[in-house]
């Protein structure tokens, strides 16, 4: 089957989730990073969509599995399966709509409630190309990110600005966490399914777990 061919030649597989209000541009960040595509009118996401892309981080091949879902508030309660095993998150707001920034706090609670405490989180102010419509200042967002101990970047999926940087930074940070063995996989078995056992020949490790065939650190 396709999924088991050469493109699966990677050292790590990291699951990264996209969260944030409806219409902030999550799906376009996903398509820009994984396929270098952008669409002004893409279908609104309802269930779960995901795409993968492998990049080189330090001297390792990291396969990023990016998950995307619906942003409407009432959907938030049906996402515990969505967060399972995530080791990184991009919390997206729209720089032109202040309410989407206001809701970031709520999203953060939801995220921390469902994931391992070592998860790498980056706050993303998307649609930064719409300079004349800006409603959230960079300083405010930066201050919030510092307070909440998350990374922060402003992006434009349309202009392809900082998208690559944002994902690369998150993946690099996850890699550092894994390398430092700081990820306490023993604490929350639900967060990292099958994380502790690395079976040769198995691809179960949709998490920050070192893949088969690689030197055991």
């Amino acid at each position, binding site marked *: 089957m396709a999924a088991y061919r050469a493109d699966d030649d990677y050292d790590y597989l990291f699951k990264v989730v996209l969260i944030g209000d409806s219409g902030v541009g999550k799906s376009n960040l996903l398509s820009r990073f994984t396929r270098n595509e952008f669409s002004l009118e*893409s279908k609104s996401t309802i269930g779960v969509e995901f795409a993968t892309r492998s990049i080189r981080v330090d001297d390792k091949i990291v396969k990023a599995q990016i998950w995307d879902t619906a942003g*409407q508030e009432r959907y938030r309660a049906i996402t515990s399966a969505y967060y399972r095993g995530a080791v990184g998150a991009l919390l997206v707001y729209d720089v032109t709509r202040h309410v989407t920034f206001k809701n970031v706090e709520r999203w953060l609670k939801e995220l921390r409630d469902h994931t391992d405490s070592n998860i790498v989180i980056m706050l993303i102010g998307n649609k930064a190309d719409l300079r004349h419509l800006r409603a959230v200042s960079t300083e405010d967002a930066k201050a919030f990110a510092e307070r909440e101990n998350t990374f922060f970047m402003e992006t434009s999926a349309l202009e392809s600005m900082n998208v690559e940087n944002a994902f690369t930074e998150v993946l690099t940070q996850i890699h550092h966490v894994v390398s430092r063995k700081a990820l306490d996989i023993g604490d929350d078995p639900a967060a990292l399914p099958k994380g502790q056992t690395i079976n040769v020949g198995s691809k179960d490790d*949709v998490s920050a777990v070192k893949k088969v065939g690689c030197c055991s650190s």
Partner: protein
Amino acid sequence: MYVYIYIYIYIFFYTSCQFYYSVLSPFYVYVQDLPRTFPGHPWLDTPDGHATLRRVLVAYSFRDSDVGYCQGLNYVAALLLLVMKTEEDAFWMLAVLLENVLVSDCYTSNLSGCHVEQRVFKDLLVKKCPGIAAHLEALEFDVSLVATEWFLCVFSKSLPSETTMRVWDVLFYEGAKVLFHVALAIFKMKEDELLMTRQVGDVINILQRTTHHLFDPDELLTVAFDKISSMTTTTISKQRKKQEPAVMAELDERLRRLNSTVDDK
């Protein structure tokens, strides 16, 4: 005299604004969903199509303010508009679907009805396709990852439109149990492939690819009704009753936890 007129105008505008803020502001979401419903469709994705869809969705949100606008309804209403003669007919079909055919509270503020359906579906998968269910359980695959979209959009976002229409024909005739038949059939059709998967991502890929390419409604419906043994509406209602308390408790617990962490700050 003029003072009274000014006061009257002020009160009128004030109450209107209050009304718009309280009732309409949550519907910002639907405004941005209009062009995101079947983008590229020769009629739906035109100013006329957007306006018609907006009228149906707004009208329904006024009919049932508990539902208001729920993402997913845009796809359902759009497909109804394509097959019904008038937008009024489409509106009434939407009302019948939500109020008489589907389980109640599917689209209300916490989607509790949808949560119940997911749990019922999970149990049915164990009963009707035990092999697949056991394998997916081992992978920690939760059926809600794919079935949420199936149930909330009544398959309209997942299946080709012609196939969705055939499913809806049976759905309107036989009731909501049809959704379970069809959902189980999709898993059943790909049993061999699903049993070979080794991670959640592959399962989602297979199921999404399958639904997007199900151009032959007969193939799907044959499996749904010949290969999946029949279920009565009463049995399913009992299953729902059984799951409801657990779902409610889970939703309450989640709210309590989130509110407490917010308050702690």
